């Protein structure tokens, strides 16, 4: 009985992000006050006059005065009220925004307000469409016609009821006087524009999944509730604290550094793909791009973490380390990351491989870590787990950061990369071109293919691993020893 249970629903589904509805209702009530509320004027139609019409500019002025905000914000607030369905426009009824001029609006009756607990029923929509069909004598708009056909198919068992009810409601509405009838029609139409928006209308009712708890309801004060509060406060006391001047300073520094790199806040070169449907920005900033963009190279100078997390930056750094003959550090760090993020089945094998390559005495790519860390790591490797190499990895990371990173930034490798970096020009699309772009949208490469490419590249790199000086020295020493003893190098 799925169709029935939607109404007498004992599960109480509540819609998220609708906690604003109670507050909006309070604001609406304040707006009704004859002295301090919004000024209303009569709307003159050809033969009738209907009272209680309000202009957009009056609404915005009232909101700005009531909440002490500027006009721009009052305008967005007003548009939100219209998008939710508390106020509806009388002209241009499909665009749910507030226009800051003399265009007219009217308040919606409480029955048609959006509410938490009354879901919008398809039965009601079907009845409304049938009524509209009667009034328009069979000529519905395209989307309405589609919905009508769909509902006729899916609600066929109720169709008799829908037709009967539509006729009766139509006749009942005819009993009222002309101005009231007009208002009623407008109200109902506005309600359905919000809850079943025609194509091209943005309403605020797109709320996602439903929740089980009413966010507006007060929680009952059970012992459980108080226990949760106690645990929370105890944990808050034990938390380590940072001085707010320090943390705020860090936030400010972060914001100022990354401000120009954030596509939300500043311009994105060549153009933001989400706005212009042109994917040049993404192709230029691919993970394994040959020539990085200037912004990307600039980000590498912000911190060592940035440099390492960008694969192109890591490649550049690797090149630099090869020249300095200390690329085993980066290789070790990468192998540790691989161990941490890899599958559990491969962990044992990887750990052994790492030990043989980097940590054992006389290993081909021996890394230089202090004795204590080496001791901990080697003993941990007897029972390897995901984080067994954490201490060593941190040590190497700090080594690279303190020493190599600074040298990298000053090195010719980096300066060369910076010179070659491209700075694309901004696109200037006309409206026609934007439409063309929107039509030519294509899906990007499948992530499966991207992953395969990544693995291939990794295999290629492992195959021609750079030769480190320790390896060279060990080879030379072994060659020297080969003559007296025939020992094969491992």
């Amino acid at each position, binding site marked *: 009985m799925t169709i029935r249970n939607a109404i*007498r629903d004992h599960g109480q589904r509540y819609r998220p992000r609708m906690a604003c509805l109670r507050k909006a209702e309070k604001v609406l009530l304040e707006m009704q006050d004859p002295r301090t509320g919004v000024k209303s004027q009569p709307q003159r139609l050809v*033969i009738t006059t209907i009272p209680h019409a309000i202009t957009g500019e009056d609404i915005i002025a009232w909101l700005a005065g009531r909440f002490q905000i500027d006009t721009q914000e009052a305008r967005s607030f007003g548009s939100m009220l219209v998008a939710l369905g508390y106020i509806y426009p009388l002209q241009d009824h499909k665009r749910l925004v507030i226009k800051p001029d003399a265009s007219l609006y009217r308040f919606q009756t409480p*029955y048609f307000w959006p509410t938490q607990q009354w879901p919008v*029923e398809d*039965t009601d929509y079907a009845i409304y469409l049938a009524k509209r069909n009667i009034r328009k004598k069979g000529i519905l708009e395209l989307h309405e016609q589609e919905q009508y056909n769909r509902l006729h198919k899916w609600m066929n068992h109720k169709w008799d009821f829908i037709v009967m009810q539509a006729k*009766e409601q139509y006749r009942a509405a005819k009993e009222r006087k002309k101005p*009231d009838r007009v208002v009623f029609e407008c109200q109902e139409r506005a309600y359905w524009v919000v809850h079943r928006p025609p194509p091209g209308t943005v309403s605020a009712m797109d709320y996602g999944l439903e929740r089980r708890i009413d966010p507006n309801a007060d929680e009952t004060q059970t012992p459980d509730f108080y226990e949760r509060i106690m645990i929370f406060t105890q944990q808050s006391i034990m938390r380590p604290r940072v001085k707010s001047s320090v943390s705020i300073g860090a936030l400010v520094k972060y914001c100022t550094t990354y401000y120009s790199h954030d596509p939300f806040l500043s311009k994105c070169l060549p153009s933001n793909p989400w706005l212009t449907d042109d994917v040049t920005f993404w192709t230029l900033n691919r993970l394994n791009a040959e020539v990085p963009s200037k912004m990307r190279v600039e980000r590498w100078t912000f911190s060592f973490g940035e440099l390492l997390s960008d694969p192109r930056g890591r490649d550049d750094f690797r090149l630099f380390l090869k020249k300095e003959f200390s690329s085993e550090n980066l290789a070790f760090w990468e192998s540790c990351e691989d161990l941490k993020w890899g599958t559990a089945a491969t962990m044992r094998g990887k750990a052994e491989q790492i030990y043989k390559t980097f940590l054992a005495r006389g290993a081909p790519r021996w890394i230089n870590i202090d004795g204590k860390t080496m001791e901990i790591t080697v003993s941990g490797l007897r029972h390897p787990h995901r984080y067994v190499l954490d201490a060593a990895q941190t040590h190497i990371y700090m080594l690279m950061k303190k020493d190599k990173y600074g040298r990298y930034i000053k090195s010719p490798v980096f300066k060369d990369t910076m010179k070659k970096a491209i700075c694309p020009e901004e696109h200037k699309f006309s409206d026609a071109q934007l439409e063309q772009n929107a039509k030519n949208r294509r899906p990007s490469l499948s992530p499966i293919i991207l992953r395969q490419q990544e693995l291939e590249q990794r295999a290629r790199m492992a195959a021609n691993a750079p030769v480190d000086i320790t390896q060279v020295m060990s080879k030379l020493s072994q060659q020297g020893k080969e003559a007296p003893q025939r020992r094969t190098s491992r």
Partner: protein
Amino acid sequence: MGKEECKTMLDALNKVTACYRHLVIALGSTSDSQNLREELKRTRKKAQELAVANRTKLTALLKDKTISKDDRAEYERLWVLFSSSMDLLEVDMKRSLEIGQDFPLKVPTRHLIQTGMTGSTTTVAARAMSVQNMKYEADSNIDTADLRDLQAEISQVSQMMEEMEMKVQVAPWAVEAKQEAGAELKSNMSVGNSSVGVISICEEEPKEEEGGGGSNTGFASICAVIVFFVIVIAALILGYLVINMS
């Protein structure tokens, strides 16, 4: 025959449900008033009486095992009509409780929403109660007293619905409707189709056809007055000619 009785009763219930919905939509707005609350109460009571009558009739008919296949299909269709009406009625009752509580009438500063509707809903209620004129006799604290009654009635209705579901085994999705798409256009709309009157030119407002100003009796009386005047004028002209002749 039981079927015809059932159909008439269902039609009546349908009419009352439609009118009740129309009245609830006016709650909380500027056309809200003492009278509206009373109209709601009376319409509700009528709806409940009809509902109980319908239910007993239909359950008796459906429980009867000796009816034919076609008859049973027909009764199931009527059952679906009945239960859908009751669903609508129940939701409207719950909403009227909520809105009635949010917009009390007897407070010093009452803020009803200025929706632009200022007329009364008397005619709608009269239609629901099938009377010519409504008489109002409720006392002044109807909004609070009524809400208590309303809560009791809502729980009654919910109970009735649940009982119905338990007792009668009807699969609503298996019912086939008799009306096809667009059936509402084919009926005779006595008031709407008469295109006497003015069509409002304002673009964004829905085009309205003034079918006689709203009620049949009004139209008839205007017609009678016009005819009367025509006859008087004809009589005067004839009298003048007679006088001239003589």
